[in-house]
Every structure is written in structure tokens, then in C-alpha cells.
């Protein structure tokens, strides 16, 4: 449901940016881990949302910004799509920070 309402907002936004007479091919998005959006679910929601509209068939491409983890013991920093993962040093409690970004980057039209 979360992904569906985002797909809905996205469709309205994409419509405003698609010039008249052009056919939309690709939509590029950047999504931060803190948004809690599953890119695959969003792609599915997008397909359903644009079906039977003038945007039907347009592809969604997602650039995903993973969690930034910092180990409080060995200070190692790394990225992970999962938030609760152990550090190589065995520490089970790395601190997590994530981007809350949800940005429409660009469109391909023909």
C-alpha cells in the first residue's frame, strides 16, 4: 500500500514533466534506505498504476542508497542494504544511518 501511494504521486509528477506528444520510456528514481521502500514492490506498483494510461509500458529504474553502518568497536564504516548485520570484528551492534531521499532524477522520452 505504501508503494502504491508513492507510485500514484510519482505518476502525477511524471505527467507534469512529460512534454505533450512525447512517449515516456524510462523513469529514474533515487531512494534512500530510510524511506523503507522496497524497489521491487515499487516497480510492481508502478506497473499497475500506469497500466491503461498513456504512460503504460514506461520502465522504472531505481538507484538505491543503502544504510551507512559504523562499528562502535573497530570504527569500520561500510554500506549494506540490510540494517541489522554484524561487523567483521564480531560486534553485533553497528550504528545505522540512512538517507531519507526519494527523488525523481530524470525521464527518457521519445
Amino acid at each position, binding site marked *: 500500500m505504501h508503494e502504491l501511494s508513492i507510485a500514484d504521486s510519482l505518476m502525477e509528477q511524471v505527467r507534469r514533466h*512529460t512534454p505533450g506528444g512525447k512517449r515516456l520510456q524510462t523513469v529514474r528514481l533515487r531512494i534512500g534506505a530510510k524511506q*523503507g521502500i522496497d524497489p521491487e514492490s515499487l516497480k510492481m506498483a508502478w506497473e499497475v498504476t500506469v497500466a491503461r494510461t498513456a504512460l503504460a509500458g514506461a520502465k522504472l529504474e531505481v538507484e538505491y542508497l543503502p544504510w551507512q553502518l559504523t562499528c562502535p568497536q573497530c570504527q569500520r564504516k561500510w554500506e549494506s542494504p540490510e540494517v*541489522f548485520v554484524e561487523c567483521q570484528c564480531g560486534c553485533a551492534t553497528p550504528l545505522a544511518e540512512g538517507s531519507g531521499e*526519494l527523488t*525523481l*532524477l530524470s525521464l*527518457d522520452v521519445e
Partner: protein
Amino acid sequence: MQISVVENVLKLNDEMAGLNRESLRKAGIFSLNLIGAPGCGKTALLEATLQRLAGKRRLAVMVGDLATARDAERMAQWCDQVVQINTGRGCHLEAHHVRQAMGRMDLSRVDILFIENVGNLICPVGFDLGQQVKVGMFSVTEGDDKPAKHPYIVAESEALILNKIDLLPYVPFKMDVFQRDVRQLNTHSPLFELSVIKGNGMDGWIHWLLAQQAATAARASEGGASAKV
């Protein structure tokens, strides 16, 4: 042909939220967006909070639900400004819901605005309503793994509540696991462990609310804001 856009997908919602935030700031209102799963005790917490603050601060409540006005009826006995927002199919509140509800309130008579979101730990997190703080709520009956399964609400909340601690002897809930997972995602926000029904731990929550409200009111009066919007 490629068209560069670079625009927030929830831009319309965020713009509306910005308007809400400005209205609330001008009116000197401390506002919070309460987010938690169905049954974690959001409405019960608000009822108990209203009961304690009634007559001391001017209170207003917006309650989001898919349907029914039951929650609003429950709270109306403690607070004269309660607006029910029925979202229909919607699994979360959006900024325009709050904007409309604000139009049905007299904001010049409000010190604290409570916005109870639709019972859901996921969808409401990404939608800014224009509130000053987000409060994420859990309960021990949901299990100690909920922060790990719902990291977004934990990372985004300015305060966290763990309700139903009176039931700890009866449920498999490891407090150290819960607290550790919370702190991995959010090192700074206060965590209030309480029981709405029994009343334990409620004092800390109430003190925090009053301190936040006093700070908001002080900022508004420094800014020379009028009480009207």
C-alpha cells in the same frame, strides 16, 4: 531524449506539510504525529494524556482511521477540539488531511496538537504532516523484534514509547534486545517505557510533553508571533 528533473517525489505533500508547519509555528502550537501498529495503545495513550493535561494546557486531537468515529468519541470527553479524519482506503495520513482538519479547528485556542496516525508502522513514516515531532509507539505484546523489523519509524522518531510494560511477566520480550536495536538506529531520542493502563512511567512522558510545549511557546513569543493564524 533525457529530461533532467531532480525533484522530491512527495513534493506536493511536502509543500502542504510546510504550510501546516508554518501555521502551527505561528500559533505557538507543539504538535506531534503519533505512529504505531494497530492495538499498541495509541488511542489509550492519548486518552490518558488528555485526562492528565485537561485544564492545564489547551489540547486538540486529530484522529486518523480508515473508518468510524469511535476514537474521536472516546477522546471527546477530555478535549473539546477533536477532529476525526477518515482516510477511506488510505493506510496513512497525508499533509492535506491535516490541512483540512486544521480548518475545522480554532488553532488560537491550542497549546498541544496530537495527531494520531492510522494504525500502521510503515506507511505513515514517509509522509510529513507538518508536525513538530514524530513519536513512534510499540508495545511489549508485539515482540522485542519490532524495531529491527521496522527500522524506519525508529530512525525517524524524536521520541519513542514502549507501552504495556505491566505485561512483561506474561510475554516473551527481551528488554535488552529491544533497547539495543532501538539505540543502533537512534542514539538520541528519549524512550519512554510505560503502561498506559496501570499508569507506570506516564510521568516521564507527561514531563517531556510539557517541556516540549513550553520550549515551543517560548520560541513563538520570542518571534513576536500572534496567537492567530
